[in-house]
């Protein structure tokens, strides 16, 4: 599979001059981007730039007021069953009485349907998903007793168990140790190889550099969108991050977190 011509593959996600409003405020507008199947795209920008809102818009949780968002050829709400969302692990209640395996099994609920309980095939899929993120040995551990990085991997396993065609992640590397980060990326690469599109909202420039095909620089409007090496330039980064971007000898750029 050639990575040189991603545009020619089928589109998993497309924004066409899209704008969303939330609480009477325009979060961003004029956003145009496309993600092909098997592609890994980062949404990059400072805090409050509208990255999380972008993920919510793809899930159909925030209405589009202008332009359009097409998810797997459909309106966002109609595509939810084939889209998996990985929230930040630390937004969930660590005291909740569930095991890691039970959390992963939740990803099977839409397939299992009402009334019925997850069956043997669902358990097998959940165990495979835990194995894919390197946590096969922690299946029985209570979710809250795992480390932050392990919890994040459990949530990725839940998304894998959904067998999605589009995967959305919100700041997956926040407070995550190096080992977990490696295992997260490995599991994501495997998903891509199976043809799933991956979109990650992050302020982690390293993650974008390391793993992504395309990057969308966002700060209430689209600062840039395209291949990593053409988009993560000092000029565009300064435009996106403003005073928080510090140039290093005309080559690299450091983004200082406020």
């Amino acid at each position: 599979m050639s990575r040189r011509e991603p545009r020619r593959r089928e589109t998993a996600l497309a924004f066409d001059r899209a704008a969303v409003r939330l609480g009477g405020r325009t979060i961003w507008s004029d956003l145009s981007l496309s993600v092909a199947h098997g592609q890994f795209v980062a949404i990059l920008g400072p805090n409050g730039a509208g990255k999380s809102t972008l993920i919510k818009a793809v899930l159909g949780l925030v209405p589009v007021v202008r332009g359009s968002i097409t998810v797997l050829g459909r309106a966002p709400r109609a595509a939810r069953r084939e889209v998996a969302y990985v929230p930040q692990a630390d937004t969930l209640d660590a005291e909740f009485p569930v095991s890691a395996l039970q959390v992963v099994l939740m990803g099977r609920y839409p397939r299992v349907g009402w009334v019925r309980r997850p069956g043997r095939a669902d358990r097998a899929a959940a165990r495979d998903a835990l194995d894919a993120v390197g946590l096969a040995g922690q299946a029985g551990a209570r979710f809250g007793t795992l480390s932050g990085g392990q919890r994040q991997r459990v949530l990725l396993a839940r998304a894998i168990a959904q067998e999605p065609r589009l995967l959305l992640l919100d700041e997956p590397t926040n407070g995550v140790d190096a080992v977990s980060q490696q295992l997260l990326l490995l599991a994501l690469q495997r998903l891509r190889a199976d043809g799933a599109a991956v979109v990650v909202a992050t302020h982690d420039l390293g993650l974008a550099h390391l793993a992504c095909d395309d990057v969308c620089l966002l700060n209430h409007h689209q600062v840039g969108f395209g291949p990593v090496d053409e988009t993560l330039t000092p000029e565009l980064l300064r435009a996106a991050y403003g005073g928080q971007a510090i140039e290093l000898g005309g080559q690299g750029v450091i983004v200082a977190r406020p």
Partner: protein
Amino acid sequence: MSELVLEPFRLPYMQRALAEVLLLGVLTGVAGVFVVLRRLAFMSDALTHTVFPGLVVAHLAGRSLALGALAFGVLTAVLFTLLAANRRVGSDAGMAIVLTALFSVGVVLVSRQHSYTSDLTLFLFGRVLTVDRADLVTTLVLAVLVLAVLAVLGKELVLRAFDPEGSTAMGYRGVVLDLVLNLLIALVVVAAVKAVGTVLVVAMLVVPAASARLLADRLAGMTILSCAFGVLGGWGGLLASYQLSVRGGLRLAAGATIVVVLVACFLAALAVAALRGRDGAQAAAP
């Protein structure tokens, strides 16, 4: 010993009371797990107060108390869900408004009665010792209904409690699931209202499940323990109030004694959890 423990339950009215509290122990034990995990304790408390005017209206109209409670319980569950969805009002302010408005209506109505005080006591604290066959049937029907719905929607409600956003992202409608849970809580309140009254029912819903949560690491274990605490509190409370009233001459109200036993269980669970936590910390220390 068996004299002390079994003898009271040879009396027919004590048998009916026991059947009622055991049924309620299981029902509130299971439903309470969802109340505690969704952090809906305050909302349950509010519901119990809004069911009160329903009781008064039914009493004045000479209709079944359960019917009046049901009408107002459903009305409140719908109002709460709608007000909570309004971002400007918010769930806590919305609840406080509905709670006080309806509770005042109840007090105004009941204060026009000659038997004001005795009626008020019945509605607020219940009379478990006067439960008759019809009350038992009502409780049984409501219990079966609530437990059946929880069996059907249990896993979706747990997912919504654990990860509300994730649940919506998977395509589940949050408002619908919230409305269902609020309606179920309203039904539990209706089921328990004759026995323990509108004030004490919230203790039956929240205390056993909160005690269980202190001790259990898994949902299944928490549910079983919660039922066990509910049943133990109902049985122990009835027994204690009977024996202390008959032998000790203390005249304890049965409903309130049940709550005292439940709270004693909670304090014991708190102590056990604290001891366990200390042991755990010591074991983890190098």
